[in-house]
C-alpha cells in the first residue's frame, strides 16, 4: 500500500494520467444540460405536445349578438323550466332568428350553408366542459348566489371573436380548465381556471366551507 501511495505522490502533477476521468465541471455541465433540457421540454415543449389547437366551427361574435338581443346572456344561454341550464344553443334555437340570412357576414354565411341547410348541430367548442363525474349546477351559482356569468366565464360575452381553443389530447377537455400557464401561477389568461381546487378555493373564500364531496361527485 505504502509503495503505491509513494508512487502516486511521486507522479508529477502536470502530467495528466491517461486513466483520469472527467472533471467536476464537465460532470456538472452534463447535469445542467440534462436539467435544462428537461425543464425546457417540460415547460415549453410538453404543452405544445399535450394540447392541440382546435379551430372553431364558427367564429362567433358575442358582442354583435349582445347588441341585438334583449335579455343579455340569458337570451341564448338560459335556464330551462325545470331549473337545468341550457348551455350552448341548439341549431333549432339559432334557427329562431337565423331561419333566413340576416346580414352580410362570412361567418353567418358559413353557418347557414354548413349547418342550417344541412340540418346539422354546430359542434361548438366548450371552454368550461367538466368530466362526467363532476356534477355542476348553474342554478345555485347564478340564481342563488347571484354570480355574474363573467365571474367564471370571463369577458367572452363582450368579445367580437372567439378566443383560441386548445384541447387536451389525453382528456379531451379544454386547456382553460387547467389554465394556459402550466405553472398555474398568477392571474388566469382568459377566464378563471376550473380544476377541483379552483372550485374549492372559491367556495372557502365565499362560504367558509369547501363543501362535501358528494355535492359535486354524486
Amino acid at each position, binding site marked *: 500500500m505504502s509503495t503505491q501511495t509513494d508512487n502516486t505522490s511521486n507522479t508529477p502533477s502536470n502530467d495528466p494520467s491517461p486513466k483520469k476521468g472527467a472533471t467536476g465541471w464537465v460532470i456538472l455541465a452534463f447535469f445542467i444540460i*440534462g436539467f435544462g433540457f428537461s425543464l425546457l421540454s417540460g415547460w415549453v415543449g410538453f404543452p405544445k405536445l399535450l394540447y392541440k389547437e382546435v379551430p372553431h366551427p364558427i367564429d362567433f361574435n358575442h358582442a354583435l349578438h349582445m347588441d341585438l338581443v334583449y335579455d343579455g346572456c340569458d337570451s341564448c344561454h338560459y335556464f330551462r323550466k325545470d331549473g337545468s341550464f341550457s348551455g350552448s344553443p341548439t341549431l333549432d334555437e339559432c334557427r329562431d332568428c337565423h331561419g333566413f340570412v340576416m346580414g352580410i357576414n362570412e361567418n353567418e354565411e358559413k353557418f347557414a350553408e354548413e349547418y342550417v341547410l344541412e340540418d346539422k348541430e354546430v359542434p361548438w367548442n366548450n371552454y368550461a366542459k367538466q368530466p362526467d363525474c363532476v356534477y355542476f349546477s348553474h342554478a345555485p351559482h347564478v340564481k342563488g348566489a347571484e354570480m355574474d356569468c363573467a365571474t367564471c366565464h370571463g369577458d367572452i360575452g363582450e368579445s367580437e371573436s372567439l378566443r383560441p381553443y386548445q384541447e387536451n389530447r389525453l382528456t379531451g377537455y379544454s386547456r382553460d380548465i387547467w389554465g394556459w400557464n402550466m405553472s398555474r401561477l398568477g392571474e388566469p389568461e382568459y377566464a378563471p381556471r376550473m380544476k377541483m381546487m379552483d372550485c374549492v378555493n372559491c367556495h372557502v373564500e365565499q362560504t367558509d366551507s369547501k363543501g362535501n364531496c358528494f355535492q359535486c361527485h354524486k
Partner: protein
Amino acid sequence: MKIDRRCFLSLAGGLVAGHLLSPVPWKVTDDLSIWTQNWPWTPVPETGPVAWKETVCTMCPGGCGIKVRMIKDRVIKIEGSEDYPINRGSLCPLGYSSIQYLYGPSRVTSPMKRTGERGSGKFEPVSWDEAISEVSGKLDALRKNGQSHTVACISGSDKGTVPLLFKRFLEAYGSPNFIRTPSGQDAHETAAYLAQGHSDKNVGFDLENATFILSFGCGLLDGGGAPGYQFSTYSRFDRRHTLVQVEPRLSNTAAKAKKWLAAKPGTEGALALGLARVIIENGLYNRNFIENHSFGFEDWTDDNGAIHMGFKRMVSEYTPSRVAGITGLEARQIESLARDFARAQKPVAVCGYNECRAVADIDKTLAVHALNALVGNINQSGGMIVFPDPEYTVSPVEKDRIASTGLTKPRADMAGTDKYPQSRYLLNLLPDILMSAKESDLPVQALLVTGANPVYTLEDSTTAQAAFAKIPFIVSFSSFMDETAQYADIILPDHHFLEGYRDVPPPEGVGKPITGLSKPVVSPRYDTRNTGDTIIDIARKMGGSISNSFPWDGYEAFLKEALKDQYRDLSRNGYVENVEKPAALDVAFATDSGKYEFYPTRRHTTGNGDEAKLPGFKETDVPGKETSGGVILIAYKSPRIASGAVANPPFMTKTIDADMLKKEKLFIQINPETAGKLNLKQGDEAVIETSAGKASVKVDLYDGIMPGLAAMPAGLGHTAYSRYIAGKGVNVNALLQPVADPTYGINKAWGIRAQLKKA
C-alpha cells in the same frame, strides 16, 4: 475534455431532476386519471332538455297509461301516468323496463329472410320491397291454387285496429283462419254468450268500485291480466274493502288478501255452486234481478211442456258439507264466505282472467257469472260489466269469387265447426291438427304471426315447435327476435311501441270501455315499420279486390278513418271512454228470453239432459298417468316474470329471488310434506318429467303450497331474444299439456301429472 460514464449518469440525473421540476409527471398523472374515465365504452348519460311525454304501454294487454321521461331524444325512464283512468299511476315491472327492449339487442333491425334451420336464428337482412314482394308472391300463388283458406293468422288480440286490418286482409284474401291466442277471454266470452246472448262482447269486472272481491284463482296482484289496473285498485283499498283469494298456493294475491282459501285445484266451480246454494237458501240474493231479469232460476217448462231443472234446484245438491268434501275446505268457511259475499255492499266474483294459463272451464265460469247474477251486480257499479268493442267506421271488404269460396271453408283450428260450433278461436288444438295432417294436405300452408309468440307460449311447446316447423311459410311481424320469429321465413319487424302509433283497445278483464292511443315518443331507431303499414303494403302489392279493400295511404290514415270522431279526443287526451254507462238491464241481454239465463238454453252439449246444460261441477281429468310418488305440476304467475308474448327483460330477471332462479337453474316449489315422501331436501337437484317433456330443476320447500302439487313459474326458459334473456330457467309450457273441453275445445287442464325425482 474527457467524457465518461459519470457524465452520462450526471446527464440522467439532470434529466430526472429537471423532469421533476417540470409539469410533465404531475400533469400527465392527472390527465391519465381523467382519460380513464372517458373510455369510449363507458356509458355517459345524455344531457339536454328534459321532457315528459304521455303514451300508452302495449308490452302486455294491460293498457297502462305511461309518462316517458326524455332527455333530448333519449328515453330515460318510464312511470305510470296518474291521470290515466286504467292504472292511475301504477305500472308493472315490464312497463318500467320496456326501455330495455327499445335499446337492447333483441330488436329485429330490418326485414329479415331466414338462411339457416328453423329456430337457429340465422337470418340475412333484406329490403322492405324484397320482403313484401316475397310474402305477397307466396300468398298470391296459394290463392291462385285455390288454397286461400290454408293461410292463417295468429294474433295476440282480436281487438283494436291492427288485428282489424289482419281480419280484413284475410277476409279480402279468402281465409277464415284468424286465430287469437288462448286467454281468459275464451271462457268469459263463451259464458257471456250462453248466459247473456252476446257473441263478441267484452266481459270485465269493475274492481275499483267493488267492496268485496272474491277471486277464484285470479293472479290479481301477481302481474296477470291488467296489472296496472289491479295494482292501483288494491293500492286504494281500505278497511271497507275485502279481497278473498281461492287458490291452492300462497301467491302474492293470496298473501295480500284478507282471507286465503286453499281449495283443491280444479274444484273452484264446486265452491261457487256451494256459495250459491247458501246465498239462495238464506234468501240473500237480489230479488229484483232474479224475478225481473233472469231465466231458469226456478224450474221451468218449455214449449213442449217438458219440465226442466232450474239453477236453484241444481245447486241445492251442493250442500256446504258436500262442497267441503270436494274442495277440502270446511263447511262453516263456505257458509260464512257466502254470507259475507252476499251481504257486502258491492260484491263481485272473478275468475279466469289473470291466470298464467288460459284454463277455460266453462262450467266454473258460468257458476262464477251466476254468483254475480245472484247478487245482482251485472252492469252495475262494482260488478260484472259487459260492453261492446269500440265501433270502427270502415267500408265493407271487397270480396272476389276466390275470397267468397275460401271464407266458406272450415277453419284450420276447428273452431266453429260441427264439433265445436260455439267456439271462436282454438289455437290450442292447432299443433295436434298439424302433426296428424299429411305434408301434402296440411291445413295451414302459410302463417302470419302478429303480437304473439305461440312457439313459446303454447302448452306442450315441443309439439308446437314440431307442428310449426311443418308449415311451409311463416311470416312474423315481431319487433323482437322471439322464438316464433326464429321459426319464420320472413320477419317484417314492427316498431317498438314507443316508436309508432297504435290504438289500445279496452284491456281484458277491466270493466271500463277505455280505448287508449299509443303515440311515438322517439323516432324509429331501426329500419322497422308499423305492422299496420306493412299489412296495407302487402295488400296493395297483391292487387285486385284485396288492394281495393285497402284504399288508405298508410296505417295512420286508416286509424283516423276507423276511429272517426274519437280520434281527436284520443290524440288530445290519450284515451277515450267509449260508452258512458253499461247497458240497462232490460236491454242488456240478447238471449232468446231477453233475460240473464241461469239455465243456458243455447249451450251446445253432447248430451241432452239438464245436467249437461246447467253449470254443475264435473271433475276435470288431469292429463298424465297416475303413479305412486308422483306430483301434479302447476304453473304460477310471478309479478317479476313476464310470461306472455314478450320475454322477461334483464331488469326484471335481476329482481327474481334466489329461491326462484339461481344462475340458470329454476326452482320448483313443493310442500315439505311432499318433499319428505319424495326424499328431497331444500336445494336438491331434481328432474321433473311429464308426458310432454322433462327438465332439471332445483327443489324449493314452500309451506305455502298444497301437498301433492309442484309449482313452477311461467315465463322463463326462453331460447331466443338475446344472450341476456335466453337460457334462464325452464319453460314450464314445455312440460304442460292441454286437454280440450269436449264441446268447446278450449283447454281445461289446470295441471299435469309429473314424476319428480332426485337427479
